[in-house]
């Protein structure tokens, strides 16, 4: 992994975005970005999986890079088409490299959040609290990636429309990708560890809302989980 490039990604995203747009050294950007995405997601996944421990650490470490890279694969055509219809008809190479660079920035933030998540778990935080901390880390990572995308889009008409539309698409696709590969933390009240859950559990938005309610009212959480325990 090119450490100098990672440093540039964090300190001067506008320069990296400009290089991507001008097709300058994009192969090196892409290779380092993929490596950074995988590394950040693996370590963050392992930290998240440590709430349950045992095989869940490996499962979550395996699945989170898939979620991040899978979401990028789904979002590249969307980003390419959204940028084009709002007045930025870039080559596909530029769109792909900008997305990968944004993904790398996102993963570097996850990497920074990994010790925080691990410490939260180590201090005995509840399932819902850990879920919210992980979601917060994801939101911060998303914000960092968005900064690079904004710089990449540059000034000009259609910038806000491009960003708003793409964010909407990214949240829906990324959320669903994460949802189908769950669980990452493990299922509360159940001791068995599974690679995937196939139970009907509503949806991602509903689950996050429920976690907020349970963090605010822990009695309700334990009551609900007592009722659903097999």
């Amino acid at each position, binding site marked *: 992994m090119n450490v100098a490039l990672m440093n540039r990604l964090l300190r001067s995203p506008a320069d990296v975005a400009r290089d991507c747009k001008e097709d300058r050294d994009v192969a090196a950007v892409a290779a380092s970005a993929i490596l950074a995405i995988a590394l950040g997601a693996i370590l963050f996944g392992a930290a998240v999986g440590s709430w349950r421990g045992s095989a869940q650490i490996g499962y979550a470490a395996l699945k989170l890079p898939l979620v991040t890279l899978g979401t990028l*694969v789904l*979002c590249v*055509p969307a980003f390419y088409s*959204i940028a084009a219809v709002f007045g930025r008809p870039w080559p596909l190479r530029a769109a792909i490299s900008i997305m990968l660079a944004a993904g790398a920035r996102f993963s570097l933030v996850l990497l920074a959040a990994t010790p925080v998540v691990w410490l939260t778990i180590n201090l005995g935080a509840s399932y819902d609290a850990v879920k919210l901390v992980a979601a917060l880390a994801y939101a911060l990572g998303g914000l960092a990636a968005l900064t690079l995308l904004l710089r990449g889009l540059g000034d000009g008409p259609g910038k806000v429309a491009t960003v708003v539309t793409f964010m909407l698409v990214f949240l*829906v*696709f990324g959320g*669903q990708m994460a949802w*189908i590969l769950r669980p990452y933390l493990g299922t509360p009240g159940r001791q068995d560890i599974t690679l995937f859950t196939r139970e009907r559990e509503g*949806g991602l938005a509903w689950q996050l809302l429920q976690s907020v309610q349970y963090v605010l009212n822990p009695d309700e959480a334990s009551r609900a989980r007592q009722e659903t325990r097999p």
Partner: protein
Amino acid sequence: MEGQRLLLAIALAAVFGVALGLRKGGVSIALAALGAPAGVAAVALVAVPAFAIVLSLANAPVDFMDLTRATTRAAVRAGLFLAGLAPGAALLVVTVEDSITVTIAGFGALLIAGVIASRSFSRDLHPYLAAAPRGTRAVLTLAMPAFLVFAAVLAARVWWLALPMLVEVS
């Protein structure tokens, strides 16, 4: 040239239709591949000719080719947007548990595509309409929004009828 562009728009929208059809699979894929471009085609072939008559009645300085060009450019933009969403839409319709999410996501994508097309169409025609005499401009100030509303309702109705997988509750 413009005919080819419209065909390209239809083909791009059909890719999104294929993704929606994966919800049920089989014949549904082919039906949805026809259904998604049907809204685009309906606006281009039914609503725009009606608008051309209104423009002629108002003596607007827009000829048929200008209108056709604006229509096909708008259609291509909508089609390109929908095609870009197709891979993610395929994942969503295949994996999502409840049908209401499919309905919201599917119609949401079509709605945004409609907004993109409307924006492109009105921007392309704006220079011509701005150069029109004052009386004509006054008529067009009403006619343009009315056309866009009519086109949106027409496309929504066609999609509602042609994409049953988006309205079925399971």
